[in-house]
C-alpha cells in the first residue's frame, strides 16, 4: 500500500493497492493490479470514525466533488452546492470522501492507464469492470482510510448504482444509503442508448480498436456520443425553456451550419467533453452500467434483515432514470421493512435535476444525514 502525492489539504490524492503478486479479482474472473484510485477528502474523520460519507460520482464525474483546487479555477467541484462547509453534506461535520471510479480517466486505473505488462496504455486489453468492481475498489480505499463503516454512501445516476451496490456487497459497512435518480437495473431502453453511444465511438476510424493513445483520439465519435447523452439528461420542457427554437443568427442559413442554439449547445458540450474524457473509458463505463442488475434478491439476499436506512430520491421529468425505476427500489425496501424515505421531486430539468435541484435535495439529505448521525451516536453509547 502506498499513499503518494501528499498535496495541499484540498486536492486529489492517489491510493494504490493490489500490487503484484496480489491483484483485484474482478467480477468477470480476471485479475487486475496494481490499481490506483484518485480520491479527495473534505473535513475530518472523528475519533469514533463514524462520520464518514462516501459520495459516488456519476458517469463522467471525478473525485473533485467540492471547492476549488486553485484560486484561478473556473469551476468548483461537480457537486459543490451539496458538499462543503455548512452545506447538506457538511464537511464541518462529516468526513467526505469521493474517488474516481475504477475504469475512469480522471486519475484512477482505467483503459488509458499504462499496462504494467506491456508498458503501453491498456486500450482494449483492460479487463471489463462492473459497478461491483468499482465498489470493491472503494472498499479497499475505505480500509486504507480506516473507515469500517460509512455513515452514508450517496450518489446520483451511476453514483446511485454504486450506493446500491454498497448495500448489496457490504451491508454491514453502511449506516445509510442515498440513491438518487437511479435504478436497480438498466432497462433495454437504457442499454440501447448506451449502445448507440458506444457505436458512435467505435464507428470513428480514429478509434482504431481502442489503440489511439499515441495518435489522434476518436474525437468525432466521442463528441457524438456525448451529444446523444446530453439530450437524455434534459427534458422536452427544459430544452424548450433553455433553447426553444432560438437561432444563433437572425436568419436561417439554409445549410448544415448550426442554425439553432440547441445545435450549438450540443456541439459545444461534445467538443468540451472530448478534451477531458477518454473514449475507451466511455465504452467500459457504459458497459458496466448495462451489466448492473440488483433486481430480485440481488440487492438484499433472501431473508436478510436490512439494517441500513435509505433515502431514495427521484425527479418527475427524468426520463433517462424515470421515477418508476426508483419506485422499484422502494418496493424492495417495503418488502424488507427497511427504515426508508422516498421523495419524488417535481422538477422540469430531466435527469440533470439531481445536479440542479439542490434546494429540495439539500432539505432531504441534510436532515436525513443528521438523523442517521444521531442514531449512530446513540447506538454506540
Amino acid at each position, binding site marked *: 500500500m502506498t499513499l503518494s502525492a501528499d498535496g495541499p489539504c484540498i486536492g486529489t490524492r492517489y491510493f494504490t493497492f493490489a500490487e503484484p503478486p496480489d491483484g483485484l479479482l474482478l467480477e468477470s474472473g480476471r485479475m487486475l493490479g496494481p490499481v490506483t484510485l484518485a480520491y479527495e477528502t473534505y473535513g475530518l474523520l472523528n475519533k469514533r470514525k463514524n462520520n464518514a460519507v462516501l459520495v459516488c460520482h456519476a458517469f463522467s464525474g471525478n473525485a473533485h466533488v467540492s471547492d476549488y483546487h486553485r484560486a484561478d479555477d473556473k469551476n468548483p467541484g461537480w457537486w459543490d452546492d451539496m458538499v462543503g462547509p455548512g452545506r447538506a453534506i457538511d464537511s464541518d461535520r462529516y468526513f467526505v470522501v469521493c474517488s474516481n471510479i475504477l475504469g475512469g480517466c480522471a486519475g484512477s486505473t482505467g483503459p488509458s492507464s499504462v499496462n504494467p505488462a506491456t508498458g503501453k496504455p491498456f486500450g482494449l486489453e483492460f479487463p471489463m469492470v462492473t459497478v461491483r468492481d468499482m465498489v470493491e475498489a472503494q472498499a479497499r480505499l475505505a480500509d486504507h482510510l480506516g473507515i469500517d463503516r460509512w455513515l452514508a454512501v450517496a450518489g446520483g445516476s451511476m453514483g446511485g448504482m454504486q450506493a446500491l451496490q454498497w448495500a448489496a456487497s457490504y451491508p454491514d459497512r453502511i449506516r445509510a444509503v442515498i440513491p438518487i435518480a437511479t435504478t436497480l437495473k438498466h432497462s433495454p431502453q437504457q442499454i440501447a442508448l448506451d449502445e448507440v453511444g458506444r457505436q458512435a465511438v467505435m464507428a470513428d476510424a480514429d478509434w482504431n480498436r481502442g489503440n489511439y493513445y499515441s495518435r489522434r483520439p476518436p474525437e468525432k465519435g466521442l463528441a457524438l456520443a456525448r451529444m446523444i447523452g446530453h439530450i437524455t439528461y434534459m427534458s422536452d420542457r427544459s430544452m424548450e425553456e433553455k433553447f426553444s427554437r432560438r437561432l444563433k443568427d437572425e436568419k436561417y442559413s439554409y445549410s448544415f451550419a448550426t442554425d439553432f442554439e440547441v445545435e450549438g449547445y450540443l456541439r459545444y458540450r461534445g467538443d468540451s467533453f472530448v478534451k477531458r474524457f477518454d473514449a475507451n473509458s466511455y465504452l467500459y463505463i457504459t458497459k458496466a452500467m448495462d451489466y448492473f442488475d440488483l433486481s430480485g434478491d440481488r440487492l438484499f439476499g433472501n431473508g436478510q434483515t436490512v439494517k441500513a436506512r435509505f433515502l431514495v430520491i427521484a425527479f418527475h421529468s427524468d426520463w433517462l432514470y424515470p421515477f418508476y425505476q426508483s419506485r422499484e427500489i422502494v*418496493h424492495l425496501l417495503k418488502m424488507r421493512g427497511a427504515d426508508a424515505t422516498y421523495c419524488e421531486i417535481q422538477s422540469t430539468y430531466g435527469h440533470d435535476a439531481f445536479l440542479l435541484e439542490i434546494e429540495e435535495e439539500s432539505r432531504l439529505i441534510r436532515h436525513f444525514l443528521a*438523523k442517521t448521525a444521531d442514531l449512530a451516536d446513540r447506538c454506540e453509547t
Partner: protein
Amino acid sequence: MRLDHRTIYGLIDPGSRVLDLGCGDGELLLCLSEGKGVRGQGVEISEQAVYKCVEKGVSVFHSDIAGGLAGFPDGSFDVAILNQSLQEVQNIGFVLDEALRVCRRAVVGLPNFAHFRARWSLFFRGRAPVTPSLPYDWSDSPNVRFMSMADFKNFCRHRGFRILQANYLGVHGPVSFWPNLLASNGIFLIEKKRDWNGNG
C-alpha cells in the same frame, strides 16, 4: 398536542410498529416515536409535507395510499393510522382492506358530516356545510367522501370490520352524548373480524 393526536396517541401501544397513512407533516409520528418508542413509517402524497417529515427525522414514502400498499408484507405493522386521510380517497373499502392486510389494526379518524352545524347549514341555510372539522368550501375541498359517524359504523358492520373502540371529539374535548349530532370528529380503532375457524 392536538386533541385528535392526543386521542390517537392513547390508542397506540408503546413500542409498536406504526404505519401512518397520510401522515402529513409527521407531527403525530414524531410524538409517537419520542413518547412511546414506536417504530414509525409514514406514507404521504404531498411533496412539501414529505420535506417536513424528513426535517423531523420521520421516515416517509412519498406516495398515494389510494393505489394500495403493494410491497408491504401482510401483518408487517401492528397498527395503521388513517387520520383525516380516508375521506380524501375514492375507494375507501380497498384502502381499509389494504391497511388491515398490512397492519393488525387500524385507527381511523374521520370528520362527521352529520354534526349539528353541518345539519344547520344544510337545513336552514341550504348551503354546503363548512365546519371546524370540514373547513373547506365545497369547490375547494380535498375531501371526496362525506360520511357521518353512523355511516362509518354501518360501513364497518357490512365490510366485516370490528370496531374495538370509538372516540368522539368535539371542538374542545370528548363527546359522550349523541355523537352523530355533537361530535365533529370520530376516531375508531378497528380490526378485521375473524371467521369461525380463526382465519382472517
